[in-house]
Each structure stands twice: as structure tokens, then as C-alpha cells.
């Protein structure tokens, strides 16, 4: 987690810089079917994040020696556009994006009925056009909409959210400033029907009690985010959350 700062991130009323309370989400908007060529696609705007996801497949895995004779391979590729962050990002994968691609692939594999597509590959391309904290979770949440849009059978959605610690307080869905100057970041993704955890990473400093509070907040938010996913697929668009007054 980032360095200390003099900025007070939570005011005396418990409100955050953008006016949210501890348990509030930023506005989330998902649209499915935004691309022509891809088999499935989705665009998500989550706070200041703007991420487009395209799905191709199931198609024959290539090269052949990578094929799994029992199930489809899910390959997520998380990538940040050069202009998506304040300082220009050099094109191409770095160690961070390779790790994120790995954990996103694993999380999606748990939801997709991979056993129906032996020897196949499902590609999920996640392009971050504008980054604003929580990109992996936002990209993953959009990915399961794009996979559904592609007509690929899933046991359930994958729905994610982060919590973290800011000014010593556990809060939901960190903003960029909270991520930069906070004390912990905990991205989690679940299968919302069962609450099974398919992605969890943490860095920072949390006591066991703080961890419990953070995961409660996340579990509490998951149904709201999943509803936005469902609505996107019913080709409706809904704006959720936003502001804490």
C-alpha cells in the first residue's frame, strides 16, 4: 500500500473525499454487447474506471500441446492502455498485469462450465481504458457479463468488490486516493449465488477483526453489483450507488 499522506481521507462525519459513507459503492454502469467482432463483450464504468471486455470462444486451443483433454482453458488477458494512467504506460505486459491475468483466469475458470468444452480455449481480453482503483475487480465483473453475452454456459456470475482500510477505518470500494494513501486493499470475487470465493488478494495491514468487517461489507455489496450485471444482460442499463448523502 502507498505512502502516508497528510490528506485526511475521512472527515469527522465519517464521510469520504467523494462524499460516500464507509459502505457505499461508487456508481457502476455495465453495458453488454458493445463490440461487433467479439463473440461476447461488455463495457463497465465503475467510478472513474472505464474498461472494455471481449470474449472469443470456445475455440480450439492453440498450440495443440496446450490443450486440456478434459476441459476448456480460460485465458484472461488484462491490459492497461498506454493512456489509461497518469504517467504513460509502456505498451505490453508487465509483471503486475501478468499476475492479474493469472488470478482473473483462475476466477473465471471456477464459474465457466469448462468441462463442456474439452480441448477448447476461451479468451477474455480486458482492456483498461481509464484506471481509477479496483480495475481487476471491475474487469472481472464485466468479464462474466461478456462471457454470458457470448452464450458460454456458466454456473454463476463472477462478481467482485474491494474493501480496504483508510485512515484506520474499514471502507468499501476504494477510490484512487484511498488506494494510494490507505493502509490495506482487499479485492475479492465470489460466485454470488453460493458466496464461494474465487479471487482473493490482500496487501497492507489488517487485524483479523478488520478482515472480518471488510469481508462482511463486500459480501453485503455483492448482490447489488450482481443485479447490475443481470440488468446489463437484460439489455437494460442501470446506474447504481453514487454519492453518500
Amino acid at each position, binding site marked *: 500500500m502507498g505512502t502516508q499522506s497528510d490528506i485526511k481521507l475521512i472527515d469527522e462525519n465519517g464521510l469520504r473525499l467523494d462524499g460516500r459513507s464507509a459502505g457505499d459503492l461508487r456508481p457502476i454502469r455495465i453495458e453488454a454487447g458493445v463490440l461487433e467482432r467479439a463473440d461476447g463483450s461488455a463495457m463497465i464504468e465503475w467510478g472513474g474506471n*472505464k474498461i472494455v471486455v471481449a470474449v472469443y470462444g470456445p475455440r480450439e486451443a492453440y498450440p495443440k500441446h496446450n490443450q486440456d483433454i478434459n476441459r476448456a482453458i480460460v485465458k484472461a488477458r488484462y491490459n492497461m492502455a498506454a493512456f489509461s494512467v497518469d504517467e504513460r504506460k509502456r505498451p505490453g505486459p508487465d509483471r503486475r498485469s501478468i499476475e492479474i491475468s493469472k488470478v482473473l483466469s483462475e476466477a473465471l475458470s471456477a464459474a465457466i462450465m469448462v468441462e463442456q468444452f474439452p480441448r477448447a480455449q476461451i479468451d477474455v481480453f480486458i482492456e483498461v481504458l481509464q484506471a481509477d482503483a479496483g480495475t481487476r475487480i471491475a474487469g472481472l465483473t464485466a468479464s462474466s457479463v461478456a462471457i454470458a453475452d457470448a452464450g458460454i454456459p456458466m454456473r454463476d456470475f463472477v462478481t467482485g468488490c474491494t474493501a480496504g482500510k483508510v485512515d484506520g477505518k474499514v471502507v468499501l470500494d476504494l477510490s484512487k486516493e484511498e488506494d494510494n494513501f490507505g493502509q490495506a486493499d482487499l479485492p475479492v470475487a465470489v460466485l454470488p449465488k453460493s458466496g464461494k470465493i474465487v479471487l482473493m488478494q490482500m496487501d497492507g495491514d489488517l487485524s483479523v477483526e478488520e478482515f472480518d468487517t471488510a469481508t462482511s461489507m463486500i459480501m453485503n455489496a455483492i448482490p447489488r453489483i450482481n443485479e447490475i450485471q443481470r440488468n446489463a444482460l437484460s439489455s437494460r442499463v442501470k446506474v447504481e450507488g453514487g454519492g453518500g448523502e
Partner: protein
Amino acid sequence: MPRDELGILSEIKKGYILRQLKEGKRGDGRTPDQFRSAEIKIDYVKRAPGSAYVELGKTRIVAGVKVEAGSPFPDTPNQGVLTTNVELLPMAFPTFEAGPPNESAIEVARVVDRGIRESKMIDLEALVIEPAQKVWIVFIDIDVLDFDGNLIDACTLGAVAALRSAVVNGSAAGKEDFRLPVRNTPVSVTMVKIGDNIVVDPDLEEEQISQARITVSTTEDGRIRAMQKGDNGWFTLDEIKKAISTSIDVGKQLREKYLK
């Protein structure tokens, strides 16, 4: 660019398109000289000083302009630096692959770059912070999200729109925010040859069955700033001359519609 890789265009369909073209008709109802209508949203990406989303048919691109302080090239100590990169994202087409730009992506980027550079759209001499030491480096980065033909023109439109709208944070040089020193408005117009017909702004189907491609970039003064012939076929000199004149005409329309 991929040629009939989807296998969707049977010989029958090719014949049909050709017969239609002989009568001056195109698949989507356009005339040979007609550009598709485009949608351009500037300031699409807030973290970039300049940006534009362009939809041309179903071709979708995002252009972002970043401006950072850095060193000039040794042989041009009194000029800022301009660099253009195009990413043909694997999401844009089934056969596009992840990895460093291939020859197609490099060609698109270099033709876009030449149109902008040779028109002297950006006054690079005005981007010097300290001669021979520190200049502004203008990065034009373009993400291709969806591919439906004519990347060069979509990317040029996006790059030019992003440059025109950019507001640069000057603090890295102890200065106020500033607009890029824009002098003119280059536009590229790309045409392909299908049989004996030449059509403007080809869509994916047209690109896949065409023999040759020509791009002409012009400025509002009607002067030619860059050209690029592509693909394995050929043009006669007369066809090229006609293409230049078409480019000047269509370029005017594009400037009028999208870059005022």
C-alpha cells in the same frame, strides 16, 4: 490486414459485390466516394490530456495523447518529439494476436504519423523547454477495439481530434496548462480497388476482396502531405491522380463534419 480470414465471403458473394459495384452500388448503400458516417467523442479518457473515441462503421478505436517532458533527439535539439503507436488489440478481430505490433500495426501507425508529422500540424519548435536538454514529448497511443475496415482513417481522425483538444499540464516545466500548438488539420482518405472500381473508406468485406489500397493525407490548403500504397495489387497513374482529387474533396467534408 486479414484477407477473407473469416471464410464468410464465398466466391458467389464476391461476384455479387463486384456486379453491384459496376452499377455504382455498395453493400451498405453508399456511393463509391462516400465515407461512412462517423461518431467522434473527444475527452473520452479523463486521465489523458487529449483523447478521442472514434466509431467508423463498426471500427472502434480510442486515441489518447500524453505529453511528458524528456530529452530531444540528438539531431533535432530544438524540436519536441512526436511518436505514434497503434495497438491492434486481440479483442478487435479473431486473428489479431497479443504481442508487440506486427507489420500491419506498424504500417498503420507510421502512415497516421506521417500524415500528422509532414503536415506540420504540431509546431514542434514550440515544444522546447530548454534547448538540447528538455522538450515536450507527445505520445499518440491508439487502441483498436473493434475492426471493420479502414483503420488508417479511423486512427488519423482519432489522433487529430485528440491532439486538437489536448490541454497539457505544464507543471513538469514549471508552466501553466497549455494547448498544443496546432497549425492545421490533416485528414487521411483511404481507397481500395475492387475489380476496376475504386471505393472510399472500405469496410471489412471490401478490404477482404480488394486488390490494392491507397491512402492520401492532405491539409486544408489542398496540398498532399503523405501517401501510402498498400497490398499486392497495382494502380495506374490515372487512378492515383483521381484518388488524390477524391481525397482532397472527401477530406474537406470530414474536416467540416468532425474537426471544426
